[in-house]
């Protein structure tokens, strides 16, 4: 019997759920939060068992209000799936804030004189085309993250602040486009060395194509998806219907990519268009894409104001699903509030769980109204000696021995779904690039969610309110298939 924990079950907003009758949509029962909490009220002290969940009600604040329950953590995902909109907050105990001196593990850096840095050349494939703008990261001590990094120039040349012949524990190269990322261990870096990256073949079956190649191009029609990111496009393979730049001080109409490429990559995974002689296309090519840029030019940080404004704008624009491949840091009430308001207006937020290989998952994916997505990969969908090949982690799926949990992905009891996020080829400014991350798994799930919801005739007639959002989350989660990774890694499973 796994160890149980205490949780507070709360309505979507506030401490008491407003009256809402249980509804039946298309023969599927949607139990309102009000009904659910009211049903638990007389069960104080008793254990409530459904086919998927067993919980013990310990206390109740009001008949239709918050409940203190005890259950095993693996039931959290099932409860979230059964009752979307219900907030599940683990019971925490605060300690007095006593200031104590602690030993910090420091690092002594001794100066070693070297006459010059080591010069490398990075090229792509046999044609030796220079890999311009590639980030080269050399770790002399990987555990302590000590080393040198630099970016290649237009000719693919780079100088690292290391002595020639220096042994490098790990060497990573992250090209901007046209090639796979490079990873190697225990490399003796020598002056004048040339490193060739594996070029991207647009016929290659990467992990997204492995799962979703079989689908037709009409997937996602009628569903509006808002990508809240670094901006998306322009790109010949992307149709961006509109959007907004919500960064303060920048032009609102400048919602294209800020130069980082992340938002364009995310958008392509959702709905890149199918072109002749290319295998690369989005999971839901007929979904309507809208771009909301929240990262300023040259910045990898977004203000919660820009994010809240983007969520608000996307809801006004009629977006059904929001893709948020961003996160980290403490829970932010402004973003949390915006996600909650979006939900109450029938728009759902699907968020990346984070790439810190940590438990729990990062905010905003940890928000009880967000759908949190972890990343999986599959051996055979990326070449060797690439950054993708380095992401092979545990556990392995019981349904497919080649399927693995990505070693960078966060995990925990708040996970809702998993999706392909290792070695994903997609659109980037100026061409195509490969990226790894829960940032990539998230749009793959968003694309599938768009396909699933596009097939729902009931959704089109529904009023844009909390019940609609609840129906959308339930319908999407019901489409998941368990891979045998365990609930803390895959939640309800993958949309395959």
């Amino acid at each position, binding site marked *: 019997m796994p160890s149980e924990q205490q949780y507070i079950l709360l309505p979507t907003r506030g401490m008491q759920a407003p009256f809402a009758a249980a509804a039946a949509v298309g023969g599927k029962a949607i139990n309102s939060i009000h009904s659910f909490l009211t049903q638990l009220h007389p069960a104080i002290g008793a254990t409530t068992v459904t086919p998927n969940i067993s919980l013990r009600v310990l206390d109740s604040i009001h008949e239709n209000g918050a409940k203190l329950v005890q259950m095993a953590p693996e039931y959290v995902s099932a409860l979230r799936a059964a009752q979307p909109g219900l907030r599940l907050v683990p019971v925490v105990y605060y300690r007095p804030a006593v200031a104590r001196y602690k030993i910090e593990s420091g690092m002594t850096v001794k100066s070693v004189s070297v006459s010059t840095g080591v010069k490398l050349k990075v090229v792509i494939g046999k044609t030796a085309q220079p890999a311009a703008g590639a980030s080269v990261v050399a770790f002399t001590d990987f555990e302590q993250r000590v080393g040198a*990094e630099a970016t290649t120039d237009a000719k693919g040349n780079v100088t690292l602040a290391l002595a020639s012949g220096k042994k490098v524990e790990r060497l990573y190269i992250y090209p901007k486009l046209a090639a796979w990322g490079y990873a190697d261990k225990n490399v003796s870096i020598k002056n004048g060395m040339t490193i060739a990256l594996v070029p991207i073949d647009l016929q290659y079956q990467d992990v997204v194509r492995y799962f979703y190649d079989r689908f037709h191009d009409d997937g996602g029609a009628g569903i509006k998806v808002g990508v809240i990111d670094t901006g998306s496009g322009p790109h010949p393979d992307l149709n961006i219907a509109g959007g907004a730049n919500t960064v303060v001080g920048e032009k609102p109409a400048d919602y294209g990519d800020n130069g980082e490429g992340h938002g364009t990559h995310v958008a392509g995974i959702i709905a890149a268009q199918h072109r002749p002689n290319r295998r690369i296309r989005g999971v839901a090519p007929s979904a309507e894409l809208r771009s909301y840029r929240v990262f300023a030019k040259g910045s990898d940080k977004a203000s919660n104001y820009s994010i809240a404004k983007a969520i608000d704008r996307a809801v006004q624009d009629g977006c059904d699903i929001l893709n948020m491949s961003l996160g*980290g840091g403490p829970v932010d009430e402004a973003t949390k509030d915006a996600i909650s308001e979006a939900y109450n207006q029938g728009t759902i937020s699907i968020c990346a769980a984070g790439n810190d290989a940590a438990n729990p998952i990062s905010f905003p994916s940890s928000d009880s109204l967000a759908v949190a997505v972890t990343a999986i990969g599959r051996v055979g969908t990326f070449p060797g000696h690439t950054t993708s090949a380095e992401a092979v982690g545990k556990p392995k799926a019981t349904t497919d021995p080649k399927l693995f949990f990505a070693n960078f992905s966060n995990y925990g009891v708040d996970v809702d779904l998993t999706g392909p996020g290792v070695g994903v080829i997609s659109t980037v400014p100026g061409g195509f690039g490969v990226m790894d991350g829960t940032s990539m798994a998230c749009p793959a799930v968003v694309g599938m969610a768009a396909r699933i919801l596009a097939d729902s005739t009931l959704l089109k007639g529904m009023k844009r309110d909390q019940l609609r959002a609840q129906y959308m989350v339930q319908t999407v989660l019901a489409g998941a298939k368990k891979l045998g990774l365990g609930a803390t890694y895959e939640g309800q499973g993958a949309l395959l």
Partner: protein
Amino acid sequence: MPNFILKFRGEGPKPADAVERIRSAPLFRILDESSPRMLLVDAPEENLQQVLESLPDWKAYPEQTISLEDPRHQIKAASKRAKV
């Protein structure tokens, strides 16, 4: 001074008279008012509390930043070297 997000929690768009009261408050500077229900302001926290006491439909949040979910490895400290 930190920036704060002021969000109107009432019905409809933010009322113009409330926006003007916020604008005229001591040491307040509105940085952005393009959102229908929000403002981004630069203001001292103590003045902010005072202004919000007279505007019960408004809520303040400190401005924070959120990062991209980037799995790329990064250097935290330079290697032992000098005079390159």
